[in-house]
């Protein structure tokens, strides 16, 4: 128990804001299993009832069978002991000795055999109850797990589906890591509660309530005296847990420092050794390490005190029950006008010992429940995010296109007040190549995002072969557009499956042909398992250049009419660079293409060069034409590609100043 305390109290606590709403939404996931939940409730009530009943039956065993014999040891077998309050088997007397015995009403002065037989029957009943409660709690545990896990599965599936409905804009505003954390940490917290904490707390609460009621029904004054420590237990638990939590919060911060120190010093160990800083670092680490130790020890002060003080309180209630009960028996079995029997004392001793555990569990696990509600709030917050615009009702499938793309006075904005594009007009004829250049933040990426409808225009229209992209289904639209991005994301699957990603039904021959076209076939054949080589996480194991070739092959296989290309700026070695260039040339030929250009050769080959600045096309034309203009493009070009200009203009000595690191 104590160890559990340490773990739970050490957790982060969060406050939920809208508990009712969150609970209602959780209920939505449980509603379809409500019959099973009803069954669970029956089992919970049943097993709790049995747990309460058993101490009562043990008390009966004493009062109805064993008490008389314990007394008879003093008086001999043949003599009735009618006057002994609380233990005599004198049914005729006005004492209520057998008021406790509802199971059987033993004969006064029954023989030893008969008593043992009666006792045996009672114990068979107890064994039956034990077995029953085992079955009930097993079923209850399993069904609850079943419901909880199914509900969570539904929740996970909903979150996942929702992630795909969200627009790319959501992910520019939020880190993917945030979504990931809601998915892992928050769902995890919820799961812990559903599988374990909720049940424990409900059952613990039920048990306490039931025991209290039972005790009160049996004997009000005695019950009140025996329950004196119960509120103290709650107060103690709350106080120690609150203190421990505060202290653990400090400890968490300290361990953060320790980890940061470790991380930095280990990853920069070469610098540390180069500058002979080992001793200072070790000293510094010692300090943060010691602070962490002290904070933890302080937190342990409170967690270590919780369990022993609850235990001590339960012994105190034991003492109270015994002394008060014993004194009552001495005063003719009377306590403030109520009857106390020996069996009742034994029953009450059993009851007081049952409090300790649930009290502790409730106080400690309550935090878990609060955390889960806060976690649920965050999950539902994600589900509430506005999804990407759906297909229009009655949207038609885009028929196979020629590739005539027109942007007609297009405006677009991520935030309503800050337009990213301001009146863009483009007319790309089928098969034309459009190069887009401009400084960072000019709106280049936004332009290409509008075409496959990753993002929506706020005004104007984008049309393909005369169809507004908003009037066709997204699927039919995107199927005809191929996209090669800077970040060449690959899945942890085989090379062939990665190439086949856009067309799972492609044959091996088609895959090979696409790899050939993308100049990727050579290196793929050198991989340990060729096309069946399974790539590590995010294409790990391949070089940046190889991954680019694979992503080109992937697009080549889908044979799109329109191509969007965001040229990579990362430097790769010369040979790979040439291969990529050659692959792209093949891919681009005959397709309408939009290229965010970084390579001079791309720009030179483009049919149209659009110069973008602050969301507007400020210059357009061919490379040559724009250079002659000596405008914005010329300046941009001079700063980015100066060396090549130098070469072009034949200024050989400029080579002495040449820098060959890309300066984008």
């Amino acid at each position, binding site marked *: 128990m104590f160890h559990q305390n340490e773990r739970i109290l050490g957790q982060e606590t969060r406050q939920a804001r809208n508990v009712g709403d969150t609970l209602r939404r959780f209920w939505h996931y449980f509603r379809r299993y409500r019959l099973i939940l009803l069954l669970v409730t029956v089992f919970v009530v049943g097993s709790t009832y049995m747990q309460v009943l058993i101490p009562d039956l043990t008390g009966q065993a004493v009062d109805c069978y064993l008490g008389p014999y314990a007394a008879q040891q003093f008086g001999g077998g043949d003599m009735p002991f009618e006057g002994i309050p609380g233990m005599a088997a004198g049914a005729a007397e006005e004492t209520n000795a057998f008021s406790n015995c509802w199971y059987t009403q033993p004969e006064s002065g029954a023989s030893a055999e008969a008593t043992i037989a009666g006792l045996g029957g009672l114990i068979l009943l107890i064994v039956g109850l034990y077995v029953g409660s085992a079955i009930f709690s*097993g079923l209850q545990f399993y069904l609850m797990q079943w419901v909880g896990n199914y509900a969570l599965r539904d929740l996970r599936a909903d979150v996942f589906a929702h992630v795909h409905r969200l627009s790319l804009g959501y992910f520019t505003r939020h880190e993917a890591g945030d*979504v*990931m954390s809601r998915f892992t940490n928050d769902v995890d917290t919820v799961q812990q509660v559903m599988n374990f904490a909720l049940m424990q707390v409900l059952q613990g609460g039920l048990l306490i309530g039931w025991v209290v009621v039972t005790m009160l029904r049996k004997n009000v004054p005695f019950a009140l005296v025996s329950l004196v420590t119960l509120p103290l237990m709650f107060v103690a638990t709350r106080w120690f847990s609150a203190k421990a939590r505060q202290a653990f919060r400090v400890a968490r911060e300290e361990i953060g420092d320790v980890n940061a120190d470790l991380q930095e010093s280990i990853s920069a160990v070469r610098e540390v050794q180069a500058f002979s800083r*080992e001793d200072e670092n070790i000293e510094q680490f010692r300090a943060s390490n010691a602070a962490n130790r002290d904070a933890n020890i302080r937190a342990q002060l409170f967690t270590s005190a919780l369990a022993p003080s609850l235990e001590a309180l339960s012994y105190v209630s034991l003492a109270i029950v015994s002394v008060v009960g*014993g004194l009552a028996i001495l005063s003719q079995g009377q306590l403030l006008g109520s009857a106390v029997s020996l069996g009742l004392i034994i029953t009450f001793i059993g009851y007081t010992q049952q409090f300790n555990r649930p009290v502790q569990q409730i106080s400690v696990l309550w935090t878990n429940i609060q955390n889960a509600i806060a976690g649920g709030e965050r999950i539902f917050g994600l589900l509430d995010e506005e999804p990407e615009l759906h297909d229009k009702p009655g949207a038609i499938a885009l028929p196979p296109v020629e590739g005539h793309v027109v942007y007609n006075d297009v405006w677009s904005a991520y935030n309503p007040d800050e337009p990213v594009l301001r009146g863009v007009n483009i007319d790309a004829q089928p098969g034309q190549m459009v190069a887009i250049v401009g400084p960072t933040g000019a709106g280049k990426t936004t332009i290409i995002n509008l075409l496959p409808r990753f993002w929506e225009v706020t005004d104007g229209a984008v049309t393909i072969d005369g169809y507004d992209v908003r009037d066709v289904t997204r699927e039919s639209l995107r199927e005809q557009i191929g996209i090669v991005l800077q970040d060449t994301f690959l899945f942890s699957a085989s090379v062939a499956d990665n190439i086949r990603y856009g067309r799972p039904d492609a044959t091996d021959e088609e895959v090979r042909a696409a790899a050939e076209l993308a100049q990727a076939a050579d290196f793929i054949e050198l991989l340990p398992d060729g096309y069946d080589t399974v790539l590590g996480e995010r294409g790990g194991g391949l070089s940046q250049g190889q991954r680019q070739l694979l992503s080109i092959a992937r697009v080549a296989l889908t044979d799109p009419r329109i191509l969007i290309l965001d040229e990579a700026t990362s430097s790769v070695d010369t040979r790979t660079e040439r291969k990529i260039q050659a692959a792209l040339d093949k891919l681009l030929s005959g397709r309408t293409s939009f290229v965010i250009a970084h390579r001079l050769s791309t720009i030179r080959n483009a049919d149209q060069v659009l110069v973008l600045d602050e969301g507007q096309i400020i210059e357009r034309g061919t490379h040559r034409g724009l250079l002659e203009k000596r405008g914005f493009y010329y300046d941009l070009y001079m700063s980015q590609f100066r060396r090549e200009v130098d070469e072009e203009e034949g200024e050989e000595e400029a080579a002495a100043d040449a820098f060959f690191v890309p300066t984008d």
Partner: protein
Amino acid sequence: MQASARRNRPEGGSGRALGRAIQYVGRYPKVALVAALALLVATGAQLAVPQLIENIIDTIVTSATNQAILELPEAVQQLAAQRLGLDLANMQIDLDNAPRALWIAGLTVAVFAIARGGFTFLQMYMSQVLSQNIAFELRNDLFAKIQRLSFSYHDRNRTGQLMIRATDDVERLRVFLAQGLLMALQALILLTGTLAILLLTNFRLTLVILPILPLAFILFMFFGGFARPLFREVQKRLGRVNTVLQENLAGLTVIKAFTTEPREKARFGESIDDLLGQQLRVARVFSFLFPFIFLIANLGQAAILYFGGKQIVGGTLTLGEWQKFSLYLIYVFIPMGQLGFIISLMAQASASAERVFEILDAENEVQTRPGAVALDEIEGRVEFDNVSFRYFAHGEYVLHDINLVAEPGETVALLGGTGSGKTTIINLIPRFYDVTEGRVLVDGHDVRDVTLESLREQIGIVLQETTLFSDTIRNNIAFGRPEATDEEIIAAARAAAAHDFIMEFPQGYDTPVGERGSTLSGGQKQRVAIARALLLQPQILILDDSTSSVDLQTEYEIQQALDRLMEGRTSFVIAQRISTVLNADQILVLDKGEVVARGVHEELMETSPIYAEIYHSQLAEDVELT
């Protein structure tokens, strides 16, 4: 050698590692002693609880009986007393004393409760103090060791792995030391003590429940062994769910572009159904095992209730004893449950201990030799005398027979492709690695004969991948000389062309640098790194002069700063810039670990075709590549 030693280690290796971790307890003898004593007292007290309850119940029963007899009619009174062999007078005294006896018994329990609480607390708290201190020591030892281990060790081990050992593994060890060790002791005392008491008080009744014990024990063991692989499988499947999600988030655009959402949804659905299946499997096992274990313990109680009841009827057992017995029975089952838990804790802790000591035992290949002298202020003459080098004992040679002499103040440019050995050469001068054959001499001293600190203090290093620390700019510049004055720091920053941009920050030199230098641009970081090296006033300089992506103006400033840095110092430069090569006193062209050409630019252009090729392809740049 190390690897083979590891392979030859006997089977009991992990147990021994755990033993070594336990030896750390000896560093805090007082705390350990207090914890152990408190544990003994607290456990002893626990064993006394049923006895106390028996006393109380017996007190109540006796007083009740006495009272009953004394209230009987006189004649019967006498008879009853005779039968019981009691004296009526004594009974009367007993009865008069009964309230007092009750009070005493109750107070005993109360006092006991406080004492037991106190000692339990002391035991828990002290074991936490002990374990936290041991974790502190282990982490310190690990940190110090990791800081001093040579580059070759860090080449083989990734930061993440070392981190996990210093955090998770140490924590797992700590939990075992704080809980497992004492819990095992406690469980053992409780189990043997209880069984002894039970056998002594009522042999026959003990025999009734004895057969349950091995059954329960086997069940607990089975449970421990059974549960672990089930949970491991849950973790594995959960990992798969997270991987799918991670990929979907990272590759979101690709998925949207290829409209494969339905496929991904199906893939994800499969992974969560898989997880669900395993979770339900675990739930099934547990919903059987948990209640079953409780049932066994409870059946033991029922047996005591019945057979004990028979003894009471037969007059050989008192009610108090009977109640005591059922309480002791709980004490038999608790430690058995704990033992199962302890065994799994111990298995984890052993594995962790092994990983921790693997680091602490790692041999540091580069160390100051006994009797090494401190290197005096040097002139800066560096000589490689027939140097060969390989990273691993049986690996391939990375350098073959390198000979070179750099006179004080000379600049040596190193040229060559990836894997030609350029980096290895510069790593040998500050003794980041030891040569395999031959010698590296600084001012005539073999670098292995001088202390590491005195050697490295006189060598300034600027690497391509600049790592800065999350501290202020000032402290980053003063990294190698924490005692440097502000004037010296500013002078170094000026020389490195860093002063101007530093002063543009609102907090100037006190601007905090984010993790890995994230508040500074690539070019700024590089200049801070140059200032850091300048501040050392090193006689020998090592640099990798390729710059990360910076604009032309910065590029120019950095070059100026580097030129100033090299002035008057012996410099080894991994050359990326034409100007560096043109100004070098010596150019070494390396290929596959050998010097294939050396000389100055003009000579090499004529004599070395490799140099000419490198010059054209790498330095003069090709047009296609921007």
